[in-house]
C-alpha cells in the first residue's frame, strides 16, 4: 500500500460523507431534532478534517501515475484545481459547522440562520467536490468520459490555480517567509489555547468553570485557521517536497487526531452545568473547585497535548527527517 492507494481509499469520504451529513441536517430540520442537527454538524466537521489527507495524498497519487501510458497531465491538473476549490469550500463549511457547535455548547443553541447557512455551504461543497471527484475519476477511467471526448483539456499550464500559487511560492521573495512567520504565530496561539483548556481538564485552575475556558476555543480556531491557510500555501506551492516525506505523513496523521480532539473539546458533554443540570439533572462543574473531570476527559486532554506536540515535532523536523524546507 502506498499513498496513491490511500488516496483511492479516502477520496470518497468528502462526497459520500457530505451526502450523509446533508441527510442528517435535512432530517433534523424536518423532525426539529437538535440531536440530529448536532450529529450532522459534528459529522461535517470530521469530514472537513479528513478532507486534508484526501487532498494531500492526491499529489502523491499523481507522482505514482504521471509517467504511465494513458495518463493525461492536463486531466490531472484540471482535477487538482477542482479539488483545491472543493477542499476550500469543504473546510469553510466545516469551520461554520464548528462555530454552530461552539455556540450551541455555550448558549444552548446556534445563532439564528447559522445551521441553514451551513446546509447551503454543504450543498455547494458537495457540488464542487462532486465535480472534482468526477474529474479525478476521468484520469484513470476512460469509460466515464463522454463518448469520443479527449481527457479534459487544459491548454496553457499557467492558467491553473495550483500552478499560479506555485509560482508565487517559488519566485516571490517575501511570500514564503511571511507565510512561515504567520504559521509560527498561529502555532503559538492555538497551542496556548489548547494548553489552557487541557490543563483545566487535568485539574489546574479548578475554580474556573469549564464554560470560561471553552470561551477560549475560538482563539484556538483562529490560530488553526491561519495555519491551515499558510500550511496549504506551502503544500500547494511546493507539493513535491512533502509527498515523499515521512514526517509530513505523520504530521497529517496527527493533525487528523488533533482535529478530532478539538471537536471533542468543543462539544464534550460532562462537567458542564448550565444545560446538563437542566436537561438530565446530572451534576456538573459549578466552578467551586470541587469538580474533577472524568478519567476519559483527562485521557483526552493528555492525548490532545501529545497530538499537538507531535504535529509540531513532525512539522519542525520536516527539513531534517525528510528533505523539505
Amino acid at each position, binding site marked *: 500500500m502506498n499513498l496513491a492507494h490511500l488516496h483511492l481509499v479516502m477520496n470518497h469520504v468528502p462526497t459520500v460523507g457530505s451526502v450523509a451529513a446533508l441527510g442528517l441536517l435535512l432530517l433534523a430540520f424536518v423532525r426539529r431534532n437538535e440531536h440530529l442537527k448536532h450529529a450532522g454538524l459534528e459529522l461535517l466537521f470530521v469530514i472537513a478534517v479528513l478532507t486534508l489527507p484526501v487532498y494531500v495524498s492526491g499529489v502523491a497519487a499523481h507522482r505514482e501515475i504521471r509517467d504511465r501510458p494513458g495518463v493525461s497531465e492536463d486531466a490531472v491538473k484540471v482535477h487538482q484545481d477542482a479539488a483545491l476549490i472543493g477542499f476550500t469550500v469543504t473546510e469553510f463549511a466545516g469551520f461554520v459547522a464548528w462555530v454552530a457547535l461552539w455556540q450551541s455548547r455555550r448558549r444552548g443553541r446556534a445563532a439564528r440562520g447559522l445551521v441553514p447557512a451551513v446546509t447551503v455551504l454543504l450543498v455547494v461543497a458537495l457540488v464542487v467536490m462532486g465535480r472534482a471527484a468526477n474529474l479525478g475519476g476521468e484520469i484513470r477511467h476512460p469509460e466515464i468520459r463522454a463518448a469520443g471526448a479527449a481527457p479534459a483539456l487544459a491548454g496553457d499550464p499557467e492558467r491553473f490555480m495550483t500552478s499560479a500559487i506555485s509560482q508565487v511560492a517559488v519566485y516571490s521573495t517575501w511570500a514564503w517567509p511571511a507565510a512561515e512567520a504567520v504559521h509560527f504565530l498561529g502555532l503559538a496561539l492555538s497551542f496556548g*489555547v489548547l494548553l489552557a483548556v487541557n490543563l483545566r481538564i487535568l485539574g489546574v485552575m479548578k475554580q474556573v468553570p469549564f464554560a470560561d475556558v471553552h470561551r*477560549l476555543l475560538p482563539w484556538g480556531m483562529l490560530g488553526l485557521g491561519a495555519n491551515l491557510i499558510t500550511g496549504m500555501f506551502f503544500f500547494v506551492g511546493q507539493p513535491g517536497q512533502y509527498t515523499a516525506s515521512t514526517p509530513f505523513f505523520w504530521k497529517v496523521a496527527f493533525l487528523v487526531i488533533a482535529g478530532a480532539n478539538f471537536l471533542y473539546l468543543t462539544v464534550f458533554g460532562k462537567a458542564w452545568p448550565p444545560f446538563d443540570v437542566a436537561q438530565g439533572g446530572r451534576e456538573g462543574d459549578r466552578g467551586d473547585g470541587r469538580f474533577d473531570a472524568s478519567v476519559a476527559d483527562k485521557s483526552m486532554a493528555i492525548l490532545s497535548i501529545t497530538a499537538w506536540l507531535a504535529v509540531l515535532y513532525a512539522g*519542525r523536523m520536516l527539513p531534517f527527517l525528510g528533505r523539505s524546507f
Partner: protein
Amino acid sequence: MLSWLESTSLAVWLRESPSVWSFPTVLTLHTAGMAVLVGASWMLDLRLLGVGRNVPLSAYRWVFPTLAVGLFVNLVTGVLLFIKDPTTWGTAMPFLVKMVLVVASVATLVPVRSLILRRDAAHRDVSRNFRLLAIASILAWAGAVTAGRLLAYLVV
C-alpha cells in the same frame, strides 16, 4: 571571543553532526518552548484584555510556572543555537532586534506577575495600564516570533 566560541567542540557538534539529536532536536525544542511561552503569555494577555472577564485573576497563577518552563527551555536551546554560529548571530541586526523584542516581552510579565499573584483571590479588575501592557505584550511576542522565524531568511 565569538570565533573562539565557534571553534568549541559543542559548536562543531551542533554545526556538523548529522545526528537528528543535534541541531534538529535543539531547534524543535526551541519551537516547542516558544509555543508554551508565547501561547501561555497570550492567554494571560487575552484575560487582561477582557476575554473571560468573570474569571478571577488568581485563576491564572498556573501561567507563571508554565512560562518558567518555556523560558528555561528556550534560554538553554537559544544559547545552543547561538553557540552554533556565534560570529553570524553576534553581528546580525535582525538577531539583535529579536533579542530586544524577547527581553521587552519578558519585561511586560514582571508587573503582570505581581498583579496576578496578589493575595486577593477574587480580584477581577484590570486597570487601563495593565490592558495597555497586555497589548504591548501581545505585539512584542508577535514581533519576536516573526523576527525569529525571519532570521532563517534574513541572516544566512
